[in-house]
């Protein structure tokens, strides 16, 4: 009986790890569980898990081309991840990154093929159009959240469908390139984001993503507005009592989040596809949201989670060709990680709560 005393909450609190170490340890445990779970799935389809995982690694990091491929996949996830982070740190959810990405992608392509401007300037204008389109796309959910307190999770999710279908309509019916697949005319070369190497489509967009993440991190930690936003994010009621104009800030935070989401689409259009096609980047917006949640809303953390996701995607392409495991194994793998991490978040909240063992709601 007395040996069980060790497991009581008070005893555990005595040897609590520093938060960062605990977080890192948690991610590692999640990774190990995912590897074991993924390995079992791979075995069930009759493939050698060691071979599958080494192929996955080789596909992601095997050569400079492959590393560039991983970063290419990670670029839109980083930017979309920062977009989601902005909302998260302001205590809000933007699940509409996917839709903002589509709108931004289309807006950038439109400026790219419709206007003739000098090189460089053309690119900047096209990116600006993407930012504006993303911001406009979240305007309605943001306004209703700020003015009437409408749940922004629902309204932003729903705005995704409208964006995807609207851009499909614009692509297939209004701006379709004659004789082609469902895509617009190609954009002018003056609007291209410069490629970094000649052996990969990896482009300047990666630096835009990194700069956004670092910039947002500095904003949160070094400016008083950033502090205000943090306060709002951790406790909105407290922030309101403290005299922070919460309603106005909700609108601004969501607009910024949407604008960055739009930028993710613009970078994808100008850097990689050089035109807009129907369903051009399915899932990147959602991947960004997941990357942000896994990083616990830290923009620096998003860089790593996004690169991890990008590497998984790039590696899975080789894995599918060289082994008998389907690319979808990666989706299972990601799901394991998401389950593990969200379980940890729940457990931690329960431990940290001051309402004792019975508190299950949060």
């Amino acid at each position, binding site marked *: 009986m007395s040996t069980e005393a060790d497991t009581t909450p008070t005893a555990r609190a005595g040897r609590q790890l520093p938060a960062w170490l605990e977080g890192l340890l948690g991610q590692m445990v999640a990774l190990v569980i995912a590897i074991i779970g993924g390995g079992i799935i791979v075995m069930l389809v009759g493939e050698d898990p060691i071979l599958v995982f080494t192929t996955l690694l080789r596909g992601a990091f095997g050569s400079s081309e492959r590393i560039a491929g991983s970063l290419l996949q990670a670029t839109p996830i980083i930017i979309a991840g920062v977009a989601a982070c902005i909302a998260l740190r302001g205590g809000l959810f933007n699940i509409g990154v996917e839709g903002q990405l589509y709108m931004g992608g289309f807006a950038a392509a439109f400026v790219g093929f419709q206007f003739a401007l000098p090189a460089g300037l053309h690119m900047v204008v096209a990116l600006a159009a993407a930012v504006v389109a993303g911001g406009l796309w979240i305007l309605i959910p943001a306004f209703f959240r700020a003015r009437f307190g409408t749940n922004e999770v629902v309204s932003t999710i729903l705005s995704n469908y409208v964006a995807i279908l609207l851009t499909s309509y614009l692509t297939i019916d209004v701006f379709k390139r004659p004789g082609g*697949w469902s895509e617009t005319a190609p954009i002018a070369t003056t609007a291209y984001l410069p490629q970094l190497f000649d052996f990969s489509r990896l482009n300047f967009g990666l630096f835009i993503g990194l700069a956004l993440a670092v910039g947002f991190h500095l904003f949160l930690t070094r400016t008083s507005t950033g502090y205000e936003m943090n306060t709002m994010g951790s406790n909105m009621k407290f922030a309101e009592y403290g005299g922070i104009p919460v309603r106005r800030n909700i609108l601004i935070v969501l607009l910024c989040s949407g604008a960055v989401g739009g930028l993710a689409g613009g970078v994808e259009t100008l850097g990689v596809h050089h035109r807009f096609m129907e369903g051009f980047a399915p899932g990147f917006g959602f991947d960004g949201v997941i990357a942000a949640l896994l990083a616990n809303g830290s923009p620096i953390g998003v860089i790593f989670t996004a690169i991890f996701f990008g590497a998984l995607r790039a590696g899975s392409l080789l894995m599918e060709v060289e082994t008998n495991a389907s690319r979808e194994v990666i989706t299972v793998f990601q799901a394991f990680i998401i389950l593990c991490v969200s379980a940890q978040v729940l457990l931690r909240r329960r431990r940290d709560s001051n309402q004792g063992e019975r508190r299950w709601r949060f």
Partner: protein
Amino acid sequence: MKANIRNLAAGTAMLGAMTAGISAASADTLKVAAISGYFSQGFGIAIVNGLKKAEQDFDVEVKIVDTGNRALDYEEQFNNIAKDGEYDLVFVMGWELVDALQKSNAAYPDQKFIFIDGILESETMTYIDFVEEEGSYLVGALTSMLTEQGVEGFDSGSQVGFIGGRDIPVIRNFLMGYEQGVDEQSDGVSVSSVFSGTFDDPAKGSELAMTLYGQGVDVIYQAAGPTGEGVLQAAKVADKYAVGVDIDQCPTAPGHILASMLKRADVAVYDVIKGEVDGSAPVTAGPVSYGVAAGGIELKVCDDVADMIPEDVMTKLEEVRAGIADGSISVTLNQ
């Protein structure tokens, strides 16, 4: 064969590793890859069936790569396949892959790519080209003979219908073959044709079909992709008939689909592999036509309506088919 071995081995890593050893190809094995995003749909399933059959009959190893729907991945996927020159033949299906295919074709000129159901600009690739006008001629012959004779269910008037997707050359080919079949195989029957302007709108297809049925048309041949699904559904609602296209669409509205004009991708794929394996027709650049003669195009009369078609119509239809196959009936595109 290989799939069976694998099923037995499922569950244990050690056996999994062993099958990897068993299926390791010998030097003579023809290695074939197929890449597309549609392997779970009608036309893609036909391709997989053709590949599976070739795998059983010949010393062939098949790798199927599903592209998914993320455009960013396509180029990488083509490069992964073509990079080591591991595959002797690579079948490609899907217009959204064309860009990545062309880049990969330029980067790996020795890789033999076979594009299914279309012809692109590059002269170094092989194209499987289905002669849709021949099949459409057969459809025209069947529908117009039924209408001419006033067979029960086809006795409302002297017109047969056609609903196309967008008004583009390939769909025009369907219409021209159809009209020629109607003209040559019957008297006093004419075609009432309409283009829906879209391939993605079943509701519009349905609406147009109802209009045609309302004008006394008893049977409509559709070449309109998903829009055509609406035409098939309308046939059921209006208690009339429609003709399916590309794949066997008889089960879509049983009893109301007269026939399906099949593009036999399985036959074409199998045939290409066979030619390469036994050396009778090694794969070379340029288009390869699969029409009625080669078995690449086929008119399948739906089983559940076969009883109501008079014997003499079936006999005549078979004569027409034989005529197209031996060249005595030539289907032309410049009427």
